[in-house]
């Protein structure tokens, strides 16, 4: 996977149950510095839909939502970009 975005931290929540992917993504973003990029690996469909929405609502910036394989997605979020 070649993309130009530099990832500062990776959160692998594949297989996790509702709402751990959402909660852990948001708490991790909150602990990161402004401008750092979090990579989230997630395969729970509801979280794939809601993480981008809820991250934006909390002033983070979603850079990319990418389908990897089957339900698996890779979401890149810039922490506190809009704060």
């Amino acid at each position, binding site marked *: 996977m070649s993309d130009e975005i530099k990832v500062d931290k990776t959160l692998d929540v594949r297989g996790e149950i*509702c709402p751990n992917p959402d*909660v852990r993504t948001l708490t991790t973003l909150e602990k990161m510095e402004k401008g750092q990029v979090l990579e989230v690996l997630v395969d729970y*469909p509801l979280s794939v839909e809601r993480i981008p929405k809820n991250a934006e609502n909390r002033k983070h910036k979603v850079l990319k939502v990418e389908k990897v394989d089957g339900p698996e997605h890779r979401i890149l979020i810039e922490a506190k970009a809009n704060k």
Partner: protein
Amino acid sequence: MDPLIFTAIPVGLVFGFALSRGRFCMNSAFRDIIVLKDYALLKAVGLAILVSMIGFAIMDRTGVISVSPVTFWWGANMLGGFIFGIGMVLAGGCASGITYRTGEGMVSAMVAVVGLTFFGLMTSTGVFSPFINYLRSATTITLADGANLTLANVFGIPYYILALAIAGVALILWAIFARRGEKESESVSLGEKIFRRGWGWTSTGIVIGLIGILAFYTSTLTGRSYPLAITGGYLSTAKTLIMGQNLMTWLPIMVMSTIVGAFLAAIISGEFKFRSPGPKTLIQCFFGGCLMGFGAVCSGGCNITHILSGVPQLALSSMLGGAFIILGCWATAWFMFLRPMRGL
């Protein structure tokens, strides 16, 4: 065998399909009022209840079905509901949530289903049943003629009038106060929207509500006068497998078809995959499922029986049971998620 029980197959298939596409789970719906402040699924639940309410009212009035509320055993409704609510947060899904995710290949949900079935049987026919029977009989309230309580018969208003009035007023208020602005701007084909993507809350709510109506009608044809339910279906299936007597009536066939419907939805959308969390979470899911099994049988229903099927019938038992499911959910979500998330 009554061939009409096979009407449960299409109902279950469509139900499972809609649950999966709509990610319809009341655990998320209620929990996220306080945890994520995300109300999309809550709106889907509300809309499904109102759509079913209108359908039930018309069918009851025309004699196609007759409303059959769960008995008002207030102690059992409350205790069972609260424990069910705790269980569904631990299990990561309500009765419908763990059912559709079983079809999508989530091992955590399968483990919860096993726990629910196991403790459901222990509660309905096993070690807990004397306690449940005592609690029920000690807290039963019915009308003088023995009828189960509904908001309609308590106030002496015909059910269909009250149901239509409530649904009508609620929908009008909703339309007036609902904020506009959630737009689906992407232009994709209808097939893509139905089969490949997650549905919005409006479509989900309407479709699930309509399935409730269809379920009540077809189920009544086989002599089972109740709409959608989940837990009882698992219990009958397990008894059939364990004891060898054929108990596969409309409900268990519907529940098994629901899993298949969700499986098909996940295959078509490319979302099917066997996946599992670590052993610690799996144990938590199993334990959560056990609490759900106990709670559902104690309360006289899981969240589907009470909230999706009982509330539209204006059953007092279901309103009370449903309220305690929500309270149990909130209490547990506060401990598990809200305290650690504080300051977010």
